[in-house]
């Protein structure tokens, strides 16, 4: 190891690499480009990954919606075209029979999927909004950010069928003056007065609800609209490790069974699976990470091989010099070490430059996409990755340096000295 800390060693290395400046630069650029690609691509992939994570942060990852449609096959004496109506009982049955289900939030709503929104008035101001009858468990599936001082529907609201309401941010803006605190105020929904208990912030990323929605206790809704045990649709969250697609199939199969629908009737119940979309998106990000790794490593390899080539040429050119050194007492080991060190030095310098350049570009992209509506957040390459890349550089540099080093010592000093 002594030779690494000797100024002469470095002088030897600088001397020999500065003799072929252009070629040294070209080779360094080869490796630099490789590590730059690696850093930039994997950083970008990480950025997308972070971005997607943020998008899906406010909803349960393995979540889906299920609703009733109408049958497309006759079955068990029923005619085709029978309207399917989900019931509160279905929720219990699903929870009991499908173990992968973590939460089910039944919901009934007005003003969604084509039916009339609800006319809402406060003083002189009015508007028409979607009205949802919800259970508190809904927030387990889709996080609701409530502005300070407010809350979402709780179990007591359900038990007592209170006339309380949570409104979306836009509803607040349209019905209240700026600076006014809506919590505690009353608004008239249809013909009934409700007390506002909270305002939902519009969630960043994926959201189930628009900001012009309103939420009241399910029990209140059912009284108001006389809807009995009917529910509009279910929001279902499966456990994180469950196969969302399979859970979705199981749920629909069970519902067909409960509602006496032909097991082959795919149309009777509709569903949308967020877990599947999420997995596909994340699969894309993973693929990108993997691809950046492959491309980066291939480019680095090409660059390192380039360095090996240059060193091989330079060793050939320096045959005589190496012969002189050996006449002066350089052992084959010392000559070998010097050349390997040259290789490692070039690779590491190129690597560091590439990392700096890559980090710079990532920082630039981050600044440029900060305000853009693009799922791209904090595109950093973790330090261990960078260090790992450097270690790989050293290892590759050493390995590739072995070839010219071996060539340098394979020639006998007497022959090396004869070289002109």
């Amino acid at each position, binding site marked *: 190891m002594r030779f690494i800390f000797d100024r002469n060693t470095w002088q030897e290395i600088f001397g020999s690499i500065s003799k072929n400046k252009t070629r040294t630069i070209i080779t360094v650029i080869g490796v630099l480009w490789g590590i730059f690609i690696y850093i930039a691509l994997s950083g970008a992939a990480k950025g997308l990954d972070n971005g997607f994570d943020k998008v899906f942060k406010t909803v349960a990852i393995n979540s889906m919606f299920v609703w009733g449609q109408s049958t497309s096959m006759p079955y068990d004496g029923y005619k085709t075209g029978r309207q399917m109506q989900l019931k509160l009982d279905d929720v219990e049955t699903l929870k009991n029979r499908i173990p992968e289900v973590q939460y089910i939030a039944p919901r009934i709503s007005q003003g969604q999927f084509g039916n009339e929104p609800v006319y809402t008035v406060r003083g002189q101001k009015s508007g028409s909004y979607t009205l949802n009858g919800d259970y508190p468990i809904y927030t387990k599936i889709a996080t609701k950010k409530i502005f300070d001082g407010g809350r979402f529907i709780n179990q007591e609201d359900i038990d007592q069928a209170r006339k309380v309401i949570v409104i979306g941010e836009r509803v607040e803006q349209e019905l209240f003056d700026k600076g006014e605190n809506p919590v505690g105020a009353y608004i008239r929904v249809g013909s009934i007065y409700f007390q506002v208990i909270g305002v939902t912030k519009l969630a960043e990323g994926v959201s189930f609800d628009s900001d012009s929605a309103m939420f009241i206790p399910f029990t209140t809704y059912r009284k108001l609209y006389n809807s009995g045990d009917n529910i509009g649709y279910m929001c279902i969250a499966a456990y994180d490790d469950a196969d969302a697609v399979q859970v979705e199939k199981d749920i629909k199969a069970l519902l067909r069974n409960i509602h006496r629908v032909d097991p082959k009737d795919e149309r009777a119940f509709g569903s949308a699976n967020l877990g599947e979309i999420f997995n596909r998106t994340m699969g894309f990000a993973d693929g990108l990470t993997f691809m950046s790794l492959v491309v980066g490593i291939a480019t680095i390899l090409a660059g390192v091989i380039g360095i090996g080539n240059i060193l091989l040429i330079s060793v050939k050119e320096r045959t*005589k010099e190496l012969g002189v*050194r050996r*006449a*002066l*007492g350089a*052992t084959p080991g010392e000559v070998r070490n010097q050349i390997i060190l040259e290789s490692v030095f070039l690779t590491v310098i190129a690597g560091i430059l590439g990392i700096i350049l890559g980090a710079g570009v990532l920082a630039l992209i981050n600044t440029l996409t900060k305000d853009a509506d693009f799922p791209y957040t904090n595109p950093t390459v973790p330090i261990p990755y960078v260090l790992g890349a450097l270690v790989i550089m050293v290892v590759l540099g050493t390995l590739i340096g072995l070839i010219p080093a071996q060539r340098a010592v394979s020639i006998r000093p*007497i022959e090396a*000295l004869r070289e002109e």
Partner: protein
Amino acid sequence: MIEIKDLHKSYKMGSNSLHVLKGINFSVEEGELVAIMGSSGSGKSTLLNILGMLDELDEGTYTLDGVPIVNLNETKAANYRNKFLGFVFQSFNLINYKTAMENVALPLYYQRMPRKQREEKALKYLEQVGLKEWATHLPSELSGGQKQRVAIARAMAAEPKVLLADEPTGALDSTTSYEVMELIQKINDQGNTILIVTHEEDIAHMCKRIVHLKDGIILEDKKVKQVRAVTNVQ
């Protein structure tokens, strides 16, 4: 200092082999200044290379300062060269991107000498050859004679037991040659053992002994009265 017995050396060239040295018996005492003469192709360089452990002998024995030189691997040979031998070449063989001082210090680097000490010593030897003020110059900025003097300083810096010079004046004009010979004589005067290969009569006579090679054997080996190099410079 040097003891050679019945040395043979052939070069294989395809199916035939060229018998270059055919039984050399030869010894050199400490402090001698020996010229090895002979026409081109007579095997002078071959002999010197074997003495310098750059080449191997086929038959015979070689003892240097009491150490039998046998079964050398490259690392061992390198260490012996570093410890025992100094080389001066016809074409100087300075490293072109190193300054005069760095060139002189190079064998000391391979002796694992600390840098400060190395530089001090290199400067001391540059001073001996009269080139101290050229220490920071690159070889390309030096004349032929200066280059050879740097090369001699480099060979001497490691304080070898024997200095081997293959045609050290071969690439120099006669005035410069005499300057170099004067330097070699001075180093010899300090007690150093020196072998010089040359085919020039006047250079050979500046040594104390002339060994004449012909057709692979020693034709003549005689002590001569040394001609001082200074006396040749008018």
